[in-house]
């Protein structure tokens, strides 16, 4: 039981650090609240969806920005989507970079776009690792017999 409480504390600390460092925001909480008996894997599912979506979008973005003449509207649409999905899971740092990216898109600033893309990729990989760690910890906790997250 000690192990479980310790793990629980660790998980809580980790989660709160994620919030504190700004990786996640209130929206993630909402997601967690939406998870219940009928959808026990809801958060993981949604986040995985997000990962898939984001990777697809990032690929598209890289491709679009590599082209000679950049189709800024398409780029903007992609970033918009990414912004929407990241905000929906509460990955607010990604979302913030998306906002900046869109501004660059509006100004048709190629350098800014590329810079933002790099930033997004970085933020994305960061949040991905963080979330994966989080899920792993949750899984361990679950396996150890503890109840899920903060209930």
């Amino acid at each position: 039981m000690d192990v479980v409480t310790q793990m629980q504390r660790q998980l809580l600390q980790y989660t709160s650090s994620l919030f504190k460092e700004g990786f996640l925001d209130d929206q993630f909480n909402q997601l967690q609240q939406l998870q219940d008996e009928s959808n026990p894997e809801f958060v993981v599912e949604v986040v995985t969806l997000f990962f898939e979506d984001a990777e697809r979008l990032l690929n598209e973005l890289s491709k679009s920005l590599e082209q000679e003449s950049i189709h800024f509207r398409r780029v903007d649409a992609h970033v918009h989507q990414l912004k929407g999905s990241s905000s929906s899971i509460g990955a607010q740092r990604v979302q913030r970079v998306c906002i900046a990216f869109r501004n660059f898109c509006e100004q048709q600033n190629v350098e800014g776009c590329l810079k933002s893309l790099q930033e997004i990729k970085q933020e994305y990989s960061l949040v991905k690792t963080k979330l994966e760690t989080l899920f792993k910890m949750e899984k361990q906790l679950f396996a150890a017999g503890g109840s899920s997250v903060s209930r």
Partner: protein
Amino acid sequence: MATTKFRHVFGRLWGFATSCKKRTTSSSNSIGTRILQRDVEKEEFQFASTLCLSSYYSVFVVRLAIMVMLAILIGLLTILTWHFTKIYTTKSLNSLAYDLRYELLQRPILRMWNILNSTSEITIAQVKLSQYVIRSHGNLTTQEDQVEMYEAMRAVTWALFASRKALNSITVKYNNGFVQAFHRDIKDNNTFYIYSDLANYSIGASGYNSELNYSSLSSQESSWNDNDNKSTVWYRQPLDPVTGEKIEKAMQIAPEDSIHIAGLSQVPDGVASWRVAVSKFTDSPLLSAALPVWDSSNKSIVAVVGVTTALYSVGQLMKELVELHSGHMYLTSLEGYLLATSTDAPLLDNSTQPPKLKMAVDCENEVIRLGAEYLRRSSGNKFPPSHEVHVANVRLGHDRYYIDSFFLNLKRLPLVGVIIIPRKHILGQVDERAFKTLVILISASMCIIVIGWVCILILTNGVSKEMKLRAELISQLEARRKAEASSNYKSQFLANMSHELRTPMAAIIGLLDILMSDDCLTNEQCATVTQIRKCSTALLRLLNNILDISKVESGKLVLEDAEFDLGRELEGLVDMFSVQCINHSVETVLDLSDDMPKLVRGDSARVVQIFANLINNSIKFTPSGHVILRGWFENPNPCSDNANFLMEEKKLQYAQKTIRAKQHENHAKRTSERDKKAVLWFEVDDTGCGIDPSKWDSVFESFEQADPSTTRLHGGTGLGLCIVRSLVNKMGGEIKVVKKEGPGTLMRLYLRLDTAGDATEQHCLVDIANNGLVVLLALHGNMGRSITSKWLQKNGVFTMEASEWNGLTQILRELFHARSSAGINNGFDVHYPIPESLKSRLLSIQEIRNPVFVIAVDIGLLDLSTDIWKEQLNFLHRYLGLAKFIWVLNHDTSNTIKLELRRKGHMMTVNKPLYKAKIVHILEEVIKERNHEMQKKNMDELHESDYTHCDAASSDDSDISESAPCNPVSSTEKFEQFDLLSRYRINNCLIGLTDEHSEVKTPRKEDSCQNNHNSPKSMSAEQAYFPREAHQGEDSERRGKEEHRIIGGLARPANGKKSLEGLRILLAEDTPVIQRVATIMLEKMGASVVAVGDGQQAVDALNGMLGVEDFRRDSNLNERNTRSSSPQTEILSSPSYDLVLMDCQMPKMDGYEATKAIRKSEVGSGVHIPIVALTAHAMSCDEAKCLEVGMDAYLTKPIDFKLMESTILSLTRRTTS
């Protein structure tokens, strides 16, 4: 005058220079002081200053350049003018002068020529005559013949001599030495005949002569000379100058004394000879000509004829000419001897004997001498033949002269004529004029230059001033642009910040709500959390205030136009504030007149905001006393007089108001008359510290507080009243501070609101009069009590008042003991002398037949600090059967008291404040109760059902007021049932209903405000939804007999029924993450969701639905019951949707297009499916776009659970109910 002007100009110049200097120094100074400021600013400033300086320098340079150019131009003009006048005049004058001089000289020369000619002619004539005479006397054989010939010769010669008066002498010298001569002495006017002695000459001589005739010329000459040398006797005989008669005897004279006789020597070659001779008889040179007389054979010279002419007349002519023209003339021979001058200077040198001719250079006349010297100098001694000298400007002595010399080339006697004319004579005037002109021109040009400079200085000064002004204007414009930009930034910043700030605030409040709903908090924690909750709410309110201000200021505030119950809103407001007031012992009273229209159209949230701000303000500054919100109605239609009066009143009080405001007023008045807008007057009256009259206007400015210390004492930002005034003005009203008697502030305002429907219809309350009601108001607050009492009395209800316990007991005793005579003695029963007025009232009450006593007892009247209240309660309990008790509770009344009351069967409790609507409800209930006493047995049941209704109403309606009548029909019995409700709730939760409500209410209110900012439309929808929500809640209560509440944005999972149960929602969203999240959220709320990936699919799905719409309607009821059990099959069998959630940006077909398509397909079918936009854009323009294409509401991503729920509910209720 001139000096002062000059000084002025100089002063200007000096001022200009110094100002330039000053500018440079000051700018450098200020640069120095500003150097610490930000770089940008500094650079800008430097740029501006250098720009300024350079412009000044350029102006300076341009001035200089213009001045110099003007000077050059005028100088050139002067010089040219002078030059042309001078040169051309001089030239023409010179040519004229030349002609004149030439002419002048020509005349003496001509005279000379004439003289020469005449001399020559006479000489030739004499010669011819002599030849004739001599030849006629061919052979002079005898003395007589000879004498005869000489006589003839004499006669002929005399004839000739007499004919020419100008002749000086004619001489004839014969070869034998005989001389015959006539001489005229011009000085004495004597004429002489000079002849030699005839005796000395013989015939032999003639023979000799004849012999000589054949000899050589040289021999002849020698013989003639020999003859001359002989001492001969010459006679001079004066003659009558006219007749030639001898008048005197001949006188012998020496030959040398005689005149010059031309001899053979003068005609050596036999041709005429000319020479200038000098005679002692005249002082002028003589011109003499000599010609030989040949014999008939032309072989020998018989005689020599000589003619001399005085040149005197030439000099005379010269004098005449010179007199006329001034100047000097002279004639010289080629050698330089003076022949004639225009002066009286002697021409002969008398110092020698015989006199000689003078050289011109030796002339006594200075001018002539100098001229001659000059000529000799200029041309050397050798005067060039045919060389004429014309010198225009020669300085001789002190004056300048023209010198011209003409060469007259006479054969044997070349002459040189010289004329010297003083320059002054010809060009004197011209030179003088030229000099004067030059002086005048130069002085004039100097004047012009000076004046021009002054003009330029003045003009350019104006220009530079204008430039300065322009520069300032430009900088002002720049500054304005910057200010506008920064204001734009401000509003953008606020707009951005609104989202950024409120999102975390909403999260904080939501999380706090969650935390507060948690049961396992300790009391301490709960208190802390409550405190945090309050602070957060306050912060959010502040934020909202600031945002409101910026919204109003930017003119973006749009008032919505929806029907609302004004009275209920205000009651809710007063309820809310009464909670606050309790701590201050301030009484909050709502006093609305009966004629107030119940339903009005307008922006209820904003109206509430106005009064909330005002009341809040009043409470803040009122430590004790009361705050009254009065309201009355003014119908503008029948009484234009009244309106005029109002106008006049306004004019008086707002004499300084701007015209615009007046126009606004007039406009408002016109519109109010046209649109039948009601003018609603309100007053907020408090007994606080009041506002200084000088601040009555300024308190409405933003960030303005009457007293700077208020921020410290009471907090606040000074925005509240500013918002109020903006809102009031926006609603066509006005607010001002009005003078009031006594301490405190009286704010009076009026609003123009559309009255909905029949304005007065709702006024008629249930007839509470004539029911024999006697109301005893035992209330603490004086103001509320007296107002209530007055109102009740006005409506025909008998009232009595008691302000404290003793008064109450006294009245009770008087009332009931008089009736029942049942003496009751306990500790509280103290006899007091009853006032006369009360007695009379009691008496009149006793006259009422079958009275119903209603006693409203303020719980504050009981002594709650000790346990005495129980005793007091027991005392009052004794009257339970005799009168209806209404317990007026405070919000913080402890549960023990409530429990005790309930235990004793005092069911009718009501919370403070006691306003009209509550009283009406109570009294109605009392009357109803009396009328249906037989149904009393079923009361519990009735209470039960009423309770459920009320609870639902109050819980769902808590946003607006926790205990306001949510529904005019259904809530009539609410208050009476309040205790039951509370009791019921105690089972679930120990927190009192009122407390909880007061806590819950605020965040909801704030949230709704927030919604309002994001989307006014959804706000209105939400408000429209609330009453229906009440129904819904009621229904669900009735079905489930269980409470359903939404706290902190999450539906309680414990509740069986979910808020969106049975709703079918089509979700169009392309992003899988959002799709998933939204689906789960909606499903969590009980809705069944069909998700599609783009707009096209959504349209397709809906089109399928429209076809089965009719079917759906029919089977609607059945579906409702069965859907929850098998939603999946329902979707398949009947794809009909209650609502569409539409993402705006989607592939294939975006949300806007899809909405348009859906709306298009709906045309004619009468169906309107609610479409809610989902967008990540948080800008209001997107919202406008959404609404424009036909969407009903607007949600921003990330999706807020609660907001989505309320929005969906509001929309679905509207369509399905």
